[in-house]
């Protein structure tokens, strides 16, 4: 091991924001499920590590129909939520890892050595979630879609969304609890009647499927149209060829589930 990193242990959210600063040279440790192996295997040598376990950033709160999920809320804590978030959370790793991994880490997960990570991104994109984060320029709140490309330089504080009228989640099966999901589609019908669709496994982070949304009334057409919204790739989990054939199927399944749930 190289020199031990400076360890920062904020006791409040404000302290975490101030210690994070503009994020330069700071490695954020939430649940540790992604960062710790990177350190153990020498792929990451933090100079400063910001540990969030005492920062008071955990917990799910509700105000009217708005749900706010703190950054260090565990994936396990979301399993009981309505679709698509609950079933999506239940599909992450095994129950012990779910009890350790956090929402903030899931949103900020960089691409893994073998495959994309961050399954919750799809469900939260479909929910139209907004992210409150800290970093250069102070605290900002923005749609998850705008947040994801800059996630490596931000400290997530919480993520909020409006409870939908209905939700659905469809994923390719995983061969083992510790395999990332090769492809998943989340669907939401808002209280205003709009349909939102998003996928994970179709790029290096979660992606909205606007062309499919526009044709949501016709499941078959929506499934095909989803291919216009993605830039498919090969990785250790699946080939682009396979993803191209299964994405329309998952879109159809999610829309069928959504129809049933509405």
């Amino acid at each position, binding site marked *: 091991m190289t020199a*031990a*990193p400076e*360890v920062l*242990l904020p006791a409040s959210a404000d302290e975490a924001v101030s210690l994070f600063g503009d994020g330069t040279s700071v490695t954020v*440790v939430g*649940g*540790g*499920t992604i960062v*710790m*192996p990177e*350190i*153990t*295997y020498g792929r990451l040598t*933090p100079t400063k*590590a910001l*540990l969030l*376990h005492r920062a008071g950033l955990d917990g799910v709160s509700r105000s009217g129909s708005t749900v706010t999920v703190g950054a260090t809320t565990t994936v396990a804590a979301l399993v009981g939520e309505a679709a698509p978030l609950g079933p999506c959370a239940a599909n992450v*790793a*095994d*129950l*012990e*890892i779910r*009890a*350790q991994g956090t929402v903030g880490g899931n949103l900020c997960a960089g691409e893994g050595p073998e495959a994309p990570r961050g399954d919750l991104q799809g469900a939260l994109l479909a929910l139209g979630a907004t992210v409150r984060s800290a970093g250069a320029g102070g605290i900002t709140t923005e749609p998850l879609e705008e947040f994801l490309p800059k996630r490596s330089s931000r400290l997530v504080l919480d993520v909020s969304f409006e409870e939908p009228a209905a939700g659905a989640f469809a994923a390719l099966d995983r061969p083992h*609890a*510790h395999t990332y999901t090769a492809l998943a589609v989340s669907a939401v019908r808002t209280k205003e009647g709009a349909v939102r669709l998003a996928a994970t496994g179709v790029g290096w982070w979660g992606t909205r499927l606007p062309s499919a949304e526009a044709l949501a009334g016709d499941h078959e057409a929506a499934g095909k149209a989803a291919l216009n919204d993605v830039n498919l790739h090969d990785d250790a989990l699946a080939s682009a060829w396979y993803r191209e054939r299964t994405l329309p199927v998952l879109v159809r399944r999610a829309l069928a589930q959504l129809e049933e749930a509405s």
Partner: protein
Amino acid sequence: MNLTVNGVEREVESAPLTPLLFVLRDELEIESPKAGCQQGGCGACTVLVDGEPRRSCLTPVVTVEGSQITTVEGLGSAESLAPLQEAFTHHYAAQCGFCTTGMIVAAHAYIEHGGGEDREQIQHALGGHVCRCTGYVKIVDAIAAVARGDSFDLTLTAPSHDMTNVGGAK
């Protein structure tokens, strides 16, 4: 930094970000948690933190300061095995032993939380634990037996000699 492991308070000098696994094995010489994949994917390093199964390889030691850490050494001893250790012996659920301690502490939490003998529920609870001897059937048998409240007469099933290694190889 002080850690409470198996009810005993221990002082540790490891750096705060060191995985709990290496603090237990290298500094405190508690070697039942195994360094398998060291990236959360095998379950062999699992210990209980305040009664909940946690991957010690993924847990910076500073985050468990003030928590109760339990390894398989804290569940039973060679002289007085815990029910799960008896069941693993009786059902021949330990082969090479590498996954056994992680399986046992995870199964302990499962049963403490009221888990029953339903095989699917046991598989769900232990789904993150890999046994490369593929002894899953007997592992689930053993856990189901304890969940049912079976008692075990080890004079019939266990080797009559050294029992000190039950619950995992060093």
